[in-house]
């Protein structure tokens, strides 16, 4: 069978404030024509970079890449343009970005055809065909904000497939969808690809994609570490690189534990009582967090797992009082958040909760200590009190000799630790972390996991993650898919 994509020793290095970062570190890859290939891996493993290289949106720093028989390694901008124009359809990671908010669905699908000079009649027929194929024939005139997440993603597929590309590239196509929608989308993707006779490369960390993939390639730290071919469920084999070295093994999958459904217990740090969060109207709505009942005891290191779109971040936001449930009750640190208005919620967080999100908004020109002091100032600490607290907090996360360094001069792990110190310096009772190791390699993630595990005697930690290292270090884990299934199960 002909090879659609051949990557050999692909290296891609990005500049960054903290120094060059290698997104791909010698990746070898083979995808055959007509296959649906899935590239799986945690955040930061190089999936999106790989997709950009194959799409011709970027060039490798080293190595060789051939796509549909065309060597893209040294292709000019014009050649890459032509590559995308003639052979490739791309579905962006964030469907909100993939679709222009300024044109309705039908026009968005028709635009790639118009750009290729397809006559209007033919174009309209193709648009209608694709809209029917993705089940949205009645949504042709809808703008982006009038479509649900799943609908937007389906329109994004239609846009990418409109010019009948030989290769469809999808970046986290289910990344922002709930599980049920994700499954539907993946099936739609498979059907579309089959119907169009297109080769498809999907990069994701959503294991659901395995169900539709002919080939699954596991990435870690910028390399392919394992590969499965054939039917879903078959074993993934470690791969060897071009020099014959065996890639590091895949981490053992952790076992989800049963959700701790203990509503109403005073010793719980967080209680979610039949909580549900829906967005939008019924017609154009989506589910942020399906009905969930759970409790997290005080003092533990709890992780919340689940595929993208399963509601992990929504759960954290509900727990922190940054959002309110559509139904149900959220009790955080013994306080029913429904009783607090927005100002009171903010004061509640300032007094009792520390938060670290994925972006970790550190002020670039302040030193590590000044950043922590600023966090304390935000929480109402006087400057005189903030200095010793900041010093202690930084020492507590192992940054005792980094007080005066600015975030730009720190590694990703060190920046995470500054953010942790900033959150911990005020001695919160609950520490909420959103994908804390998303930008770290496996070694870094393991180090941070150990640090967090050591903290759980001081503070209750609630973190969302896909990272096996964190999951392994956690004292318990709430898997939202399992929770939802349990919640949905008939009583008795």
């Amino acid at each position, binding site marked *: 069978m002909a090879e659609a994509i051949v990557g050999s020793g692909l290296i891609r290095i990005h500049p960054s404030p903290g120094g060059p970062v290698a997104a791909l570190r010698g990746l070898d890859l083979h995808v055959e024509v007509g296959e649906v290939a899935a590239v799986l891996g945690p955040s930061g493993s190089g999936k999106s970079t790989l997709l950009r290289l194959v*799409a011709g*949106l970027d060039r490798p720093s080293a190595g060789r890449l051939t796509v549909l028989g065309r060597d893209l390694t040294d292709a000019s901008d014009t050649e890459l*343009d032509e590559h995308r*124009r003639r052979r*490739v359809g791309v579905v*962006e990671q*964030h469907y*909100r*970005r*993939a679709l*222009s*908010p*300024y044109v309705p669905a039908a*026009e968005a699908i028709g*635009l*790639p055809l*118009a*750009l*290729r000079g397809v006559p209007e009649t033919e174009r309209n027929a193709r648009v209608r065909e694709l809209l029917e194929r993705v089940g949205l024939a009645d949504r042709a005139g809808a*703008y982006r904000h009038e479509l649900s997440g799943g609908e937007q993603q389906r329109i994004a597929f239609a*846009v*990418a497939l*409109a*010019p009948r*590309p030989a290769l469809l590239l999808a970046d986290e196509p289910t990344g*922002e969808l709930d599980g049920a929608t994700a499954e539907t989308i993946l099936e739609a993707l498979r059907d579309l690809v089959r119907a169009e006779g297109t080769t498809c490369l999907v990069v994701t960390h959503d294991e659901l994609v395995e169900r539709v993939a002919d080939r699954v390639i596991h990435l870690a730290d910028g390399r392919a570490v394992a590969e499965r071919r054939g039917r879903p469920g078959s074993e993934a084999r470690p791969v060897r690189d071009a020099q014959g070295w065996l890639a590091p093994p895949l981490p053992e999958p952790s076992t989800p534990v049963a959700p701790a459904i203990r509503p109403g217990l005073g010793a719980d740090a967080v209680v979610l009582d039949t909580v549900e*969060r829906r*967005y*939008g109207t019924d017609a154009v709505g989506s589910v*942020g967090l399906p009905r969930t009942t759970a409790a997290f005891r005080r003092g533990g290191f709890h992780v919340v797992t689940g595929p993208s779109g399963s509601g992990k971040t*929504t759960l954290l*936001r*509900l727990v*922190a009082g*940054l*959002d*309110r449930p559509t139904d149900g009750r959220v009790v955080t640190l013994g306080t029913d958040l429904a009783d607090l*208005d*927005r*100002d*009171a*919620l*903010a004061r*509640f*967080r300032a*007094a009792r909760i520390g938060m670290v*999100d*994925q*972006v970790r*908004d550190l*002020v670039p*020109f302040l030193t590590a200590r000044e950043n922590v*002091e*600023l966090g304390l*100032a*935000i*929480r109402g600490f006087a400057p005189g009190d*903030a200095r010793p607290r900041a010093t202690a907090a930084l020492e507590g996360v192992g940054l005792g000799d980094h007080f005066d360094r600015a975030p730009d001069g720190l590694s990703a792990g060190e920046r995470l630790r500054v953010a942790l110190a900033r959150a911990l310096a005020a001695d919160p009772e609950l520490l909420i972390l*959103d*994908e804390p190791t998303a930008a770290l390699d496996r070694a870094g993630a393991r180090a941070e996991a150990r640090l967090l595990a050591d903290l759980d005697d001081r503070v209750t930690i609630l973190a969302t993650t896909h990272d096996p290292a964190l999951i392994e270090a956690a004292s318990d884990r709430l898997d939202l898919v399992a929770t939802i299934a349990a919640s949905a199960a008939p009583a008795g």
Partner: protein
Amino acid sequence: MPGPITSLVLARLRRRAATAAISVASVAAAAALIGIVSGIGLIAADATVERTLVAGGAELPVVRVSRFSPSGADHAEARASAEAALDEHMGDFTGPLVAGLLGHELADLEAPVFELIVAVDDPETWLTLTEGRLPVHCEDGERCEAVLLSESAPDVDFRIARPAPGVELTIVGRGLLHPAMPFGDLDQRGPFGSRPIGGGEYQTGRSSPAVILVNGAEAVAKAPAFDRTGRTYVWTAPLDVDRVHPWTAGALRDATAALARDLAADDTAFTVTSPMPGLEAALARADAARGRLLIVGSLGVAILLAFGVFVALVIREDVGAEVARLRAVGSRRRDRIAFLVLEATIPAAIGGIAGWAIAAVVVAALSAWSGSDAGAILAGTLLGPTPLAAALLVITAAIVATILATAPGIPRAGGVRIATAITLTATIMLGWQLATSGPLGAPALAGVIASPIVVLLPPTLVFLAALVLTTLLPPLLRAVTRRTTGAPLPIRLSLLSIARDPGRPAATVTLLAFSLGAMVFATAWSATLRQGNEDAAAYRSGLDLRVTELGTALSVAKSVVPVSRYESLGDDVTAVPVFRETSTTQPGARVEILGIDPAALSTLPGWRADFSSAPIGELADRLQVAEPSGGWRVTGHRLPTGVTDLEVRFRYSGQPVRLDAVVATDGGDAAIVPLGTIREGMTRASARLPDSGIGGQLTALIFRNDQLIAGPQHQGDLVTGTVTFDGLDGLVADDPIDLEIFTVSSVVIRAPQASDGLVLPAIVSPNLARDAAADGSLDLHVGGGTVALRVVGTAAWAPTVTDADPRFVIVPLDPLLVAVASALPGAGRPTEMWITAPTPQRLAEVRHALGQAPFRFAEVTARADLVAERAGDPLTQAIVWSLVVAAIAGLLLSVGGLILGAVTDLRDESGELADLEAQGIPPSSLRWHALARTAWLTIGGGIAGLVAGVLLAVVVTGALALDAEGRLPIPPLVVVLPLLQIALVVGGVVVLVLTIATWLARRTYGRATLGERRGGVAVPPRGAAWTAGSEHVDG
């Protein structure tokens, strides 16, 4: 059917209607500013041309061909040439030709009469009869009816001279010819004045001649009876003012030149006069003023560019996302370029066309209002090929700037570096040019393309101010935020949010530096020019009124003596006598002498503090001179009261000499009474005293060379004699005096005066101070004498001294008058009176009184008139209105930019704000934070605008030597900052913007949680995270 990219861009504009509308409106405002300023310039130029030609209605602009002939022999030939040439060249600009003849003096030697005869064909159009009837047309030149041209009935025994036998002229009426037709400045005052009152009288003893008008130039020209009389033929054509405009002035210039050339080729005796010199001067002034308007225009261009970049930075991320989508769907590079170009071009084109259309409507309305031809004005400005090309160039530049700032492939830092390099280069070049060329005058500003300084100065200065601010601001903010840990949290966080990503804040500040700077500059420059007009008026009028009078019965020299008459104007009226004379300090060095009471100096509204380094009060103190015991007056021999003849007794031996006596009145007037030639052995000389001199004081006797005849052969003549006067106590002792009169000199006998040996303190111009001796002494030549001065201070300018590079001395009046009278007996009278009254009404009454006795033909320069005249000047109004338009446009763009910035900030900072809320900052504090951020930008932009505007006003005022009327400003302009006005406007902008920002912040940070506010859509995970993303849809 538009292509896919065009459709996409149009769809984007439709969906971002509010943002797009602000962009379009801003481009339109800037384009309208440029267009309106362009139109106003030509309208003002047209009004200036009309004003120059009409000259207030008193004069009729004409083209006149004249030719002197000693007789009538060549009349027909001259007439044919003149009329043909006028018809050929001036036909497009002039009305019907009027032929005239100006006959020269008709002297009747039998009587002391003197007439001019003038003849005009069909004079009824130009003649205004006050008595009698029109003369009938003279056919034969022998018996003609005539009209006496005279303002009033003759005050003398008038009869017509008989120039030649066979001519009979009969006066049938009295009247006046139009002052311009056909002879121009024909003296029609007379006949009056049977007795000479001094120099300048006509040979026949009349002050003004009788002028007799005959109907029929041809007859007089051909009449043999007049053949002995020299004459000037005149062909005069009135200019049709409606046909003369700035855009036709070139053709008129060419036609006039061709007329003169053709006639000169025919006969060099022809002379052509036309209003062209005055018109050229007016056009040059208008050109300079239009060149100056380029400053406003270039400021509009700079605002346009800045706004383009600002909007580009606002939409940069959104455009970047769209380009990324286009790349993803397989667009070609040219598609994406087309997208970027159209994204920038469509709003710019719509705004540009709308702005140009607005400008066209405004300019057409202004043209109609001012009486100009709107079509021609529009064709010469907004719709002309050059302005259209310039406008297209400007819009294109704005589009290119927007594209460069928007294009995702071009890093912002690179753009900033390029802008910095360009700005610094332009600054250095302009600085060098300004330093080497000095202030630009009218010539440099005139022409199609004015000095690059004018065009580049505003954008360069404002860019420089913005550059300095945006360079200094981030490190300054960082330093501030690190050192203000105790500051209220919203303040500190808002500073942090600006400091951490200063890109768009810098763009906002830069935009405000341009737009608010334009408003401040326009306000300040307008105030500066208006104040310049006030200053110039006050400078020229001394006090409220500056009065000069004709000579007295004793002397033809202009003077305001006796000054005591001015007391009749009222106790509440202050009248300050002033002596003005032009003199020299050394051969060839002209000096204007200003004698004034030092105490009055500090009351002069025309004296500005910047004229002298020392305060005027201090300088005035230095001018004070101790008064002598008898006061400052010229002493001499008192003449007996009632004696009408002056008799001087003496003993004389020597060559004949002429003796004059100087008789002064107590009122300060003086007369020279000729006592005739005295010869050896004579013992007395006498003459009749003028009436005013009776009872006066004999202040000097002057011996002159009686044989003085001009010519080189008489150089070196010496006349000697000895004289002993008798009975002239108070003037001269009875001792013999030896006389030696060398050629043109004279010997003056006078009494010792208080000013003898006195060195007068003087404030002098710096150039004169440099001529003074090391001890500050300076000799001033007055008449034949010398007045010794001592420099006690310098001043750059002195009121009423209107030279561009003035050389003057200011000395105390009373001692100066005595010193001048001592040096030049008979001289030393106050020449002007500067008057002020407490109210405008009293001032009007004073002006009325000055037209009546005892004041003599007072000529009044009124400060209020000068101000009104200058304020009404079209070029003044053009620059003032242009600046008003610039100020309004600047203000609108400031408000638009700030609101756009506030909206965009709330959108783009939402991630940061959400993070702060997650960390525990309540929404109420976040509202303050958002408000504080807008406030910082507003304040920062306000400061940038103020700095840029003031800097621009200072530099432009210094760089352009042009007042509101387009003339060299005397005294120089001083920058005026109407701080209250500016503060009110800027304060209004700040309040408006903060009110809107408060409303926006309240809307964003109200009761609903962040998640609830975003309930309409699923919230993406962080990264695009808890932000709304960079895309937005209005409404």
